[in-house]
Structure formats: C-alpha cells, structure tokens
C-alpha cells in the first residue's frame, strides 16, 4: 500500500485486469437465442420477478452487436445451427455462452435425426443449465457462474 500514501487523497491503485473484469462481469449483456419452450423461462429471467438487471444483464439486444453472453434456450436443429453460429461469430470478443436446458446441452428428449445433440457440437459453451425447463433462477445461477469466471480471468495483461 505504499504507493497510495505518496499519491495523496482521491487515488487508489488496482490491476487493469481486476478493473476490466469487474466492469465486464457486471455488464454481461445477453444475446437471447430463444429457440423453444426454454425461451419462456429466459423471458422470466429478464422480467421483474427474477430481474437479471440486478446483475447488470438486463440489456437484451436481439442483435449480436455489443452482446457478451449468448443464451441458447431451446433445442437446436441442424438448419438453425448455421444461423446460431453466424450470430455467435458476429458477437464481439470476449464472449461467453450458456446452454440453457436439457435440449441445448444434450439434445434432451429430442433424440432424433433433426436435432443437434448438444449445442457444444458447434459452440464453445461456458455454462450448462440442467432441467427441462430450468427455472429462471437456475439461469441466474449460470449467469453468476459466468461472472465468477470473468472475474478470475487474466485477459488484459500478462506479467512478463
């Protein structure tokens, strides 16, 4: 704490990583990818009762621009997979992905030729939410897991 005393009042020191991680983790804007019934629970997650705004995640853009967390809510079929991947590629880095519900995580009960058996076949998933459908608080939990993950990231500078 030596440097603060020489800077005087009105200053504090921190690491750039800590600062950016704090900012990023508290403004993880979702890109809602609502594909099936799970999407309804995702709406509740953003609504007043569960209130994702408490975590800085109320800004659902329905556009890849400036979104950070893609929430894949519902089952993914092969045709849709290409559209999802395209939107994912359009999201700016850094970005995170939640597979919401049994279907997005594993194909769920749709064990058939048309449905991709888990969206991690073509997306890098950070958090899986179990359940069919998962409750909105389970999705909040996944969001908090991602916040934890962001907070422990060494993203900006590496000690050399």
């Amino acid at each position, binding site marked *: 704490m030596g440097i603060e005393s020489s800077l005087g009042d009105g200053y504090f020191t921190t690491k750039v990583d800590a600062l950016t991680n704090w900012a990023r983790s508290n403004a993880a804007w979702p890109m809602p990818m609502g594909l099936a019934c799970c999407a309804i629970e995702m709406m509740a997650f953003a609504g007043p009762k569960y209130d994702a705004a408490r975590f800085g995640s109320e800004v659902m853009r329905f556009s890849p621009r400036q979104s950070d967390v893609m929430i894949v809510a519902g089952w993914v079929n*092969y*045709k849709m*997979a290409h559209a999802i991947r395209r939107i994912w590629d359009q999201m700016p880095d850094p970005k995170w992905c939640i597979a919401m519900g049994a279907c997005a995580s594993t194909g769920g009960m749709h*064990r058939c*030729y048309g449905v991709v*058996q888990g969206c991690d076949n073509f997306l890098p998933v950070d958090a899986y939410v179990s359940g069919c459908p998962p409750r909105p608080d389970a999705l909040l939990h996944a969001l908090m897991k991602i916040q934890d993950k962001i907070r422990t990231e060494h993203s900006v500078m590496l000690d050399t």
Partner: protein
Amino acid sequence: MDLELSDTLKKVIDGLSDQFSDSFIEVYQSTGDTFVRVEADAVVDICKYLKSTHHFIYLNDLFGTDRFTSEERFEVVYNLISLRDRERLFLKVRLPEEDPRLESVADIWKSASWMEREVYDMFGVHFDNHPDFRRIFMPEDYEYHPMRKEFPLLGIPGSIELPSTTPDTE
C-alpha cells in the same frame, strides 16, 4: 364385414364403386372412420369426383406411411372432410418400394402442395405435376428420407453438416 354408413357416405361409396369400378379395391371401417382403398393411377380423378360431386372441399390431411412390407410398401392417405355434410372419408393408395410415384392433387386442393412435399421429404414418394416440388424440412441436398423405417432414429452421422467452428477470418 357390415358397414355402418350414414346415408351420405353410402351415396359416396356407391358412387365411387360405380364410377371407378376398375380402380376401387376395398372399403372398410376402423375406429369409427371409413377407409377406401383405390388404385394409385386413378387418384386424381377420384379426388376431383369427390370434391365436385360430394363436396369434399377440405383436404384435412395428406400423409404417408411405411408399411415395411416387400410389396406395396408405401401408403399415401388422404383425409377428406365435407364441411357441409359433416362427413370424413379416408382415401388410401399403396405404392411399390421401387420408385414410388403419384400424381399430385395440388390443383384440386392447394393445401396439398405442402403436404405432398412433406410426404416426399419423409418417405421419398414423388408427386408428378406438382407446382413446387422441393423438400420441406430437410436440407435440399439431403440424401435420405427420415421416416422410412430402416432409417436410424439418430440419423446418419455426418449426413447433415454442422457449422464450421473456426470463424471466417478476413
């Protein structure tokens, strides 16, 4: 088997077996509905007749089944409704496994267009003179027909492409 037919359906069945005696195969009842099996090559004429003479103006459904038999493997079923007379009639045709082919009824009932595309997509039954003959659910270049009974439930690995996981770089 004795048939319990309403007066209107009796007229319809009698009319069919009179007018299309060469193509009329059988009529039976099951679970409260009446089924008429006919030859595949007469289906357009029969549909025209049923619509114009007996007021079956509503094609409720048109679907395929795979009987998985060595002969007459596929079946296409027309579920017809007369809204005026409150009657329902199922019309069935059977098709061979080798090159299953039927005449389209899309210019009799417009809704048949999409349903025939579905039967083609899922079972591989071709419909001649269809206005817009394409697959409807599966990708256009897909080689298989998923509702055929030999098709594995989980599909054939690698038969549909997944997106590339390396993003395009410019």
